[in-house]
């Protein structure tokens, strides 16, 4: 057994009791949920916060003068404070709510790409991006004459830092838009260095932190980055709400993304003026209940603490690497030095989809496919992989169940 002795150790059994879904059985077997990188499970606190809001105070926000609307506006806006504190933002107005990371990245391509960048400039992404951090930039390239550059990934699955710097040297890159942690390889990108090098060449930096925020404390001032995007549902919150943090002076310079109610200062047929940041970017009735749920999720994560979460994950990761290495015919994809609890692998003699279904028969949930990162899969010469990913509720025993389950799949398929 791999016991944890760190003073920050987190009590997994106590945490598991906070997640009602984890007591389920699947096909008569205890649920082993190893697909948190796709979407994480929700603690009771998040479920209750949303239900409570609906049962006691629900109304639209930023509009009504009545008690219900005031209370709901207060609750919704308090999420902005909680998120600003979580990310160590300078000011709550730097927190823009979106639908998810994808929408945050599209907002950036639209408002920063079309509104601030100039034709002939370039956007630099990496070779391990999710489709959501590729396609918006392709659309920008095709509509707006912005070049799209890709910093390659090494065979170990790390960002090729020399090549990255070389792509910045001509000074044409206006924005680096890059994942902070790969959803396929688990690789954590050296964010501080990425920023330092980009800034030295006059480029701003936007991180796609969809995975990273689940595993690492994100301090945007320490990172010194310019924008940071993530999504609530991977951080134990509800679907339908994401976050874009940006430096206030940059957000001020960006034109709106969507037009509508809530984002205006005044409207006439001749002309409209925009509300101040962040509301300029939040058209229409926002995801009110999702925002209230996200506050509960952030509070939950803060109550456990990133130090304890990171220590637990490091211990699980070490255990998983050791156990998976012992499964015959199994190959873990990527050997990054700095990595988190997301593992892609192939199993000799069994296709990834068969592996996933055969694990499912044993009550173990993993993902299989190209993980919305086709260019990375091509770079690695793979059609698909199976992927196991961890959350705060993942136990060492579940890692053992995965390794044992894979050994059975291997024997069954041989």
């Amino acid at each position: 057994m791999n016991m944890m002795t760190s003073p920050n150790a987190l009590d997994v059994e106590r945490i598991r009791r906070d997640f009602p879904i984890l007591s389920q059985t699947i096909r008569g077997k205890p649920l082993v949920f190893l697909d948190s990188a796709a979407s994480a499970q929700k603690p009771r606190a998040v479920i209750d916060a949303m239900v409570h809001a609906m049962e006691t105070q629900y109304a639209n926000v930023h509009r009504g003068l009545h008690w219900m609307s005031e209370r709901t506006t207060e609750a919704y806006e308090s999420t902005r404070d909680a998120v600003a504190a979580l990310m160590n933002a300078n000011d709550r107005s730097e927190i823009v709510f979106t639908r998810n990371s994808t929408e945050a990245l599209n907002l950036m391509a639209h408002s920063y790409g079309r509104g601030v960048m100039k034709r002939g400039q370039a956007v630099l992404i990496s070779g391990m991006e999710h489709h959501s951090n590729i396609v918006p930039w392709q659309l920008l390239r095709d509509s707006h004459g912005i070049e799209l550059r890709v910093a390659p990934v090494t065979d170990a699955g790390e960002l090729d830092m020399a090549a990255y710097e070389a792509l910045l040297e001509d000074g044409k890159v206006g924005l680096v838009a890059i994942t902070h942690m790969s959803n396929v390889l688990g690789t954590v990108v050296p964010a501080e260095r990425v920023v330092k090098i980009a800034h030295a060449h006059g480029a701003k930096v936007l991180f796609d932190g969809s995975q990273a925020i689940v595993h690492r404390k994100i301090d945007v001032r320490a990172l010194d980055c310019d924008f940071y995007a993530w999504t609530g549902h991977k951080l134990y919150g509800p679907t339908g709400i994401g976050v874009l943090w940006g430096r206030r002076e940059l957000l001020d310079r960006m034109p709106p993304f969507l037009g509508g109610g809530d984002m205006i200062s005044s409207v006439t047929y001749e002309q409209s003026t925009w509300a101040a940041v962040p509301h300029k970017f939040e058209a229409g009735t926002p995801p009110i209940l999702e925002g209230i749920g996200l506050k509960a999720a952030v509070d939950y994560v803060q109550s456990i603490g990133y130090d304890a979460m990171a220590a637990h994950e490091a211990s699980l990761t070490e255990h998983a690497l050791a156990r998976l290495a012992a499964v015959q015919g199994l190959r873990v994809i990527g050997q990054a030095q700095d990595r988190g609890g997301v593992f892609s692998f192939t199993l000799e003699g069994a296709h990834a989809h068969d592996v996933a279904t055969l694990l499912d028969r044993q009550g173990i949930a993993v993902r299989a496919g190209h993980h919305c990162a086709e260019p990375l899969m091509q770079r690695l010469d793979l059609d698909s992989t199976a992927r196991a990913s961890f959350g705060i509720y993942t136990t060492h025993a579940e890692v053992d169940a995965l390794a044992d389950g894979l050994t059975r799949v291997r024997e069954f398929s041989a």
Partner: protein
Amino acid sequence: MTQTDGFDDLRDLYQEVILDHGRRPRHAIRLDDFTATAKGDNPMCGDRVQVWLKLNGDVIGKIGFEARGCAISIASADLMAETVQGRAKGDTRTLFEAFREMARTGSCPACPPTLAEPIERLAPLGGVHEYPSRVKCATLPWHALIAALDGAKEASSE
């Protein structure tokens, strides 16, 4: 065949016949002398198949395929080839409809009794109906086959 090897929990979808045809497909060959060919592609999971046909008038004289994908898709392509070789075009289309129904629902009560024998051979694949995301793995080769019969180059996705 023994079912007591400790893998009973894994076998409802992956019956021996599927594992066997998935591992050692008999018809996984590219025909040099063909009259029709079509590809099928499932971009969601990366499965790819190409089917070649040698038609003798109205009858599929010979069929071969190349497939890249999971055990279900390869076994399905192979069992399909086995059941349609020597079969008339019209009969093949009827068999496709029957198979599609079986893959979606697990049974095919309205299937014509004249096709009872090939349907019986395809029956092990009916287990995919419990896995909606895997149904396409089983039907993809059939879509490529029907496209080839229609003179199309690519199967249109469902």
